[in-house]
C-alpha cells in the first residue's frame, strides 16, 4: 500500500529517513517525510557557518565610528536607515535558522547592555569562520567549542585585569560620563551634534538614576519624536511631554503655577456599570433628566474648583457642555491622555490619580511650574510641555529632525548612549574602545595558547584571530590598511605593555584610547564575548537539521 502511493508521486527520498521493506521498496516512517529537508553531519555544520558568515558580513561595515548606514525597506514600504546592529538584523526578514539565532544574539545584547550589538555579531561570525578552518582540519566541532570556552575565560580574565575604574559623580557636567556617551554616539548619524546628544543622555540618566541601588529605571525616561526642525532642536525636557492640546481652543496657551487634577473618570454624568434602562414617558421627566445632568456638571466643576486645581488632566473625553463649563470657569483641560502618559504625569507632578470627583482633595493634586503649548511651524500639531515638576525623576527626550528616518535614528542613537551611561552608573569599570580591549585579549589568548596541550592550542589561536577580526574591520571601515594597522598595533601593545592602544579611527593622530577617551563599559565587553562564544558553541553542536515542509493547504 505504502509503496503503491509512493509510486504515484515519488517524493525526494534522497535525504529523508528511509527504511526498506523486504521487497526493497522504501516506506515512510516520518510524517511528510518527502517534504522535509534534512542536512546531516559536517555538511550541516558548514552550511550553518556560511549562513552566519553572510549575516555577519552584512553588519560588518557598520562597525565603528566610520561605519556606514544601511537602508532597510520593509514589506509595506517603510524605510529605516540605521547602523545599529540590532535594528538592522531585526528588520531583515531572515529565513535561515542560524541567521535567526544571530538576530536573537544581537537582541539579547541590546536588551541587556543596549550597546555593542554590531560587535557581538561580528565576533560570533569571526569565531565561526575560524571554526570552519579547524573543522576542515578534521577537529571535532565540540572540541573546538570547548577550546573557545576556555579561551573566552582567559579573555575575560584579561579584561578584568586591564579594566580601569573611572570616577563617576552625580554631577551632570561629569566629563567622564559625557565622553563615554560621546563614544557611543560616534558611529551614529547624530555625530555632528554629539555634544548635545551626549549631554542629553547624561542629564536624562542622572535625573532618574538611583545611585544607592545603582539602578536606572528606563520607564522614567520617555522618548518623544517629531519631524521638523533639525537635530540640534532636540532637547531634554525635565518633565512630561504630552502629544495633546488643550481641550478648548480659547484656553490660555501658557499657565504658570499649575495645580493639576489627574482624573480617570470622564467629565460626564456618572453611569452605572450594570446594564440599565431609564424609561422616559413624559416631557417633565425629560426635563428632570436634563436638569440632573446639568447639576452633575456643575457639581463636577465645583469639586475641581474646591480642590484648588487650575488644570484638569483626564484619561477620557468630555462632553461639549463640560468643555464649555470648564472654559467658563477658567479651568484648563487636557483630554484623552493615555494610561501610561497619565501615570508619568502623576509621577512627575507628585499627584495622585483620582477615580472620582468626590475624592478630589488639595493634597491629591499634582504641581508643576508651567504648562505650555508648543506649536510646530506651520503644521497644526501641538504638544504640551509640563515643566518644573515637583518630582524631577521623570524626563522626556524630545528628538527633532528633518525626516522620519533621521528622527528614528536619533532616537536609537540616544537610546544607545543612554544605555552606556546607565551601564557606567551600574558598574564604573571600563575598558578602552577602538579595538584596544579586543587586541589585549587577543594577545593574552595567543600567549596562553602556547601553554595548552592538544587541540585547545588550535582553538585558542583561532579565538585570538577571531578577535583580531574586530580590529581589522574597524581599520577597514575607517579607510586604513587593516593588516598594517593590526600588525602595527599588536607590536606596539606588546612592546609598550599598554592595553590602551587601539585603532585611530577618526585620524586624531594618536593610538592611545585613554587619551582620546574612547571607552566601553566592562560589562558590555564581557557580555559580548560570553554571548558570542556561547552562540558559537550552540551552532557548532548542531549536526543534524530537519526542516518540515510548509503545509500546502
Amino acid at each position, binding site marked *: 500500500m505504502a509503496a503503491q*502511493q509512493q509510486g504515484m508521486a515519488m517524493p525526494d527520498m534522497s535525504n529523508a529517513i528511509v527504511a526498506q521493506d523486504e521487497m526493497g521498496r522504501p516506506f515512510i516512517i516520518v510524517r511528510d517525510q518527502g*517534504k522535509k529537508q534534512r542536512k546531516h553531519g559536517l555538511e550541516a555544520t558548514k552550511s550553518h557557518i556560511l549562513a552566519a558568515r553572510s549575516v555577519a558580513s552584512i553588519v560588518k561595515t557598520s562597525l565603528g565610528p566610520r561605519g556606514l548606514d544601511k537602508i532597510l525597506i520593509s514589506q509595506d514600504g517603510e524605510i529605516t536607515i540605521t547602523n545599529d546592529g540590532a535594528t538592522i538584523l531585526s528588520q531583515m526578514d531572515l529565513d535561515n535558522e542560524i541567521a535567526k539565532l544571530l538576530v*536573537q544574539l544581537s*537582541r539579547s545584547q541590546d536588551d541587556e547592555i543596549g550597546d555593542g550589538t554590531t560587535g557581538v555579531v561580528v565576533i560570533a561570525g569571526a569565531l565561526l569562520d575560524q571554526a570552519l578552518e579547524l573543522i576542515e582540519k578534521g577537529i571535532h566541532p565540540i572540541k573546538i567549542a570547548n577550546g573557545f570556552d576556555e579561551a573566552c575565560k582567559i579573555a575575560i580574565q584579561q579584561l578584568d585585569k586591564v579594566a580601569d575604574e573611572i570616577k563617576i559623580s552625580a554631577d551632570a557636567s561629569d566629563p567622564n560620563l559625557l565622553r563615554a556617551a560621546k563614544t557611543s554616539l560616534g558611529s551614529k548619524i547624530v555625530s555632528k551634534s554629539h555634544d548635545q546628544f551626549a549631554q542629553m543622555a547624561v542629564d536624562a540618566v542622572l535625573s532618574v538614576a538611583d545611585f544607592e541601588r545603582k539602578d536606572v529605571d*528606563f520607564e522614567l525616561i520617555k522618548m518623544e519624536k517629531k519631524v521638523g526642525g533639525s537635530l540640534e532642536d532636540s532637547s531634554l525636557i525635565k518633565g512630561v511631554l504630552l502629544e495633546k492640546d488643550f481641550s478648548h481652543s480659547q484656553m490660555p496657551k501658557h499657565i504658570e503655577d499649575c495645580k493639576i487634577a489627574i482624573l*480617570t473618570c470622564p467629565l460626564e454624568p456618572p453611569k452605572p456599570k450594570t446594564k440599565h434602562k431609564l424609561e422616559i414617558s413624559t416631557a417633565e421627566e425629560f426635563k428632570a433628566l436634563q436638569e440632573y445632568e446639568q447639576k452633575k456638571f456643575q457639581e463636577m466643576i465645583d469639586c475641581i474648583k474646591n480642590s484648588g486645581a487650575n488644570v484638569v488632566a483626564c*484619561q477620557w473625553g468630555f462632553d461639549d457642555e463640560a468643555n464649555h463649563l470648564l472654559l467658563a470657569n477658567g479651568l484648563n483641560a487636557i483630554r484623552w491622555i493615555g494610561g501610561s502618559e497619565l501615570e508619568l504625569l*502623576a509621577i512627575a507632578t507628585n499627584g495622585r490619580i483620582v477615580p472620582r470627583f468626590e475624592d478630589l482633595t488639595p493634597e491629591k493634586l499634582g504641581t508643576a511650574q508651567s504648562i505650555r503649548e508648543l506649536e510646530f511651524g506651520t503644521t497644526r500639531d501641538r504638544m504640551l510641555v509640563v515643566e518644573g515638576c515637583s518630582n524631577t525623576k521623570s524626563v522626556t527626550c524630545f528628538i527633532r529632525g528633518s525626516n522620519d528616518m533621521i528622527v528614528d535614528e536619533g532616537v536609537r542613537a540616544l537610546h544607545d548612549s543612554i544605555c552606556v551611561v546607565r551601564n557606567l552608573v551600574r558598574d564604573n569599570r571600563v575598558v578602552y574602545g577602538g579595538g584596544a580591549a579586543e587586541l589585549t585579549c587577543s594577545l593574552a589568548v595567543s600567549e596562553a595558547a602556547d601553554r595548552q596541550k592538544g587541540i585547545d592550542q588550535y582553538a585558542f589561536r583561532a579565538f585570538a584571530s577571531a578577535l583580531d577580526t574586530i580590529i581589522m574591520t574597524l581599520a577597514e571601515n575607517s579607510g586604513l590598511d587593516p593588516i598594517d594597522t593590526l600588525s602595527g598595533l599588536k607590536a606596539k601593545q606588546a612592546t609598550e605593555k599598554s592595553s590602551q592602544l587601539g585603532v585611530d579611527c577618526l585620524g586624531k593622530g594618536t593610538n592611545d584610547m585613554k587619551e582620546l577617551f574612547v571607552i566601553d563599559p566592562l560589562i558590555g565587553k564581557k557580555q559580548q564575548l560570553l554571548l558570542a562564544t556561547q552562540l558559537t558553541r550552540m551552532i557548532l553542536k548542531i549536526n543534524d537539521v*530537519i526542516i518540515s515542509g510548509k503545509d500546502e493547504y
Partner: protein
Amino acid sequence: MAFSSQTPTIVVLKEGTDASQGKGQILNNINACLAIQDTLKPTLGPFGSDILIVSSNGKTTISNDGATILKLLDIVHPAAKMLVDISRAQDAEVGDGTTSVTILAGELLKEAKTFIEDGISSHFITRGLRKANELAVAKIKELAVEVKKDDPAEFRQLLERCATTAMSSKLISKNSEFFTQMVVNAVLSLDQNDLDENLIGIKKVPGGAMEDSIFVDGVAFEKTFSYAGFEQQPKRFTDPKIVSLNVELELKAERDNAEVRVEQVQDYQDVVDAEWKIIFNKLEAIAATGANIVLSKLPIGDLATQFFADRNIFCAGRVASEDMDRVLKAVGGRILSTCSGITSDDLGTCANFEEVQIGSQRYNFFKGCPEAKTCTLVLRGGAEQVIAEVERSLHDAIMIVKRAVSHNSVVAGGGAIEMELSKYLRDYARTVAGKQQLIINGYAKALEVIPRQLCENAGLDGIELLNKLRSAHAKGEIWYGIDFQRENVGNNMASFIWEPALVKINALESATEAANLLLSVDETIKNEDSQEGGRGRGAY
C-alpha cells in the same frame, strides 16, 4: 458445481486496508526502528551533537534530548512510534537517559533481526531477552554503590556528581559547575518527602549569558499587566504581609446579565453610588488587614491600583495560576475568594520583596520565605533556543537529582556499567546450553552499543577503546569506562561520573520490553485513511 473446483476469494477486510504479515513484517518493523535509532545516535554522550528541528509552523528547536527530538520528528510508522513511547516513558519515569533507552532498544532489535533471519522463532528470542534483562537488572542492583544519606556533605556531593553527569552531554556542560549547584539547591529546597518538581519554577528571560541565571529561594514571576498608578506603588518591602486573592478588583457590573431599571432620575445616582460602594468595601477590607502586597489571579483594575498606590500597597493582578500556587507554598497564607473576614492567618510573609529589572523584563521577587518548599530558577541566555535547551537540560538534571535523593545507589557512567553487564552476560551465556546462549550473547553485544557510540561521537577509535574496555573488565576492573579527558579508558567511579542505578535499571527494562513487544507483532492491519489522498498526509 461450477465453482467447486476453485476457492472463491473471501473479502474480510474493506478494500484498501493495509494488511502485511509474517516474518517480513517483523523485519520491516525492525528496519523502521533502526532508522529512528540512526537519527538519535549522534546525540549520545558528552560529545553528542544537537539536532535542529524546524516544525511545519516554523518553530525552531535545537535539542540534544532524545525524548524532545522524537516527539518533534512526528513519526507515523506504527512500529517506530513504539520507540517514541518508550523514550517518553523514560522521560516521565526518570527524566533522563531518553536517548540511551532508544539506542539500546534499537540495538536489541538489530541483534534480534539476525536471529529472525536465521529462522529462530520470535517467541524464543523474546524469552531469551527477558532472561538476559532479569540477570542484568539483578547485576546492577548487586553492583550499585550505596551512598550514605547520613552525612549531608557526602550526600550533597553524590547529588552534584549525578547532576554533572546528566549535564555532560548538554549545551551547559561547560558551565556545569554553576548549574549543578543551582539544580542541587533547587531539589534540596523542596519538601524531601514529596519532591514535587513542579514546585521548581523555571522562568526564561532572553538576554545575558548563561551564567547570569539566578537561583531564587522563593518565587519570582514576571510583572503582570498593570494599570495607571502602578508606578506610584512602592516596589520594595522587607517582611511584607502578603494577601493572595481570587477576586476581581474592578469597578464593573456585579452580574453580567443583570439589568437595572431606573425609575426616576434621582435613583440614577444611587445605583452609581451602590456600585462604587461595593468595590470600595472590598478595597477597604483588604487595606484594613494591614497587607503590603496584594496578589490576585483575576484582574486588579485601575481604580484599585490607584487606591493601593495611595496606601503604599503593592498589587499585581492576573497572576498566573501556577505562579500563585508557588507563591502560596513559599510565603504561606491562603487563597481567598472573598475580601471580607480576612484574618492574619490568611496572610503570608517573606523576608523581602522587590521588583527587579532582568534584561528587558521586570520581575517580582519574593525572597527568603519562611516555609519555602519551592524555588525559582531564572534562566538567561543569548537566544530563545539556547534558553529552551538549558531548560530541558536542567529538567533532566533535576529529575536525576530527585531520583538520587530517593534512591541513593549509583553506578558509573561513560559506558562502564554497560560493559560490566555485557561481560557478566557473556560469562553467563557460556553456562547455558542451547539456542538461549546465542540470544543472551546477543543482549550482551547490544549493550556495548553505548560505549561504542560514545566513542564514535567523540571521534575516538571505537574498536580499539572497546577492546581495551573488554580486557579491563575481564581483569575485574568493574568501573572502567570511556574517559573523554584522556581519550582513553579509565575508572569512571573514581572520576565521579555517576548515574543513579535506577536510571539504568529503568532504561534496560523499557528497552527490553519495547524490543519484545515489537518482536511479537507479526501482522499490521491498518485501516485506510478515511480521506483518500486528502490533506496531503502522504503515504504510510
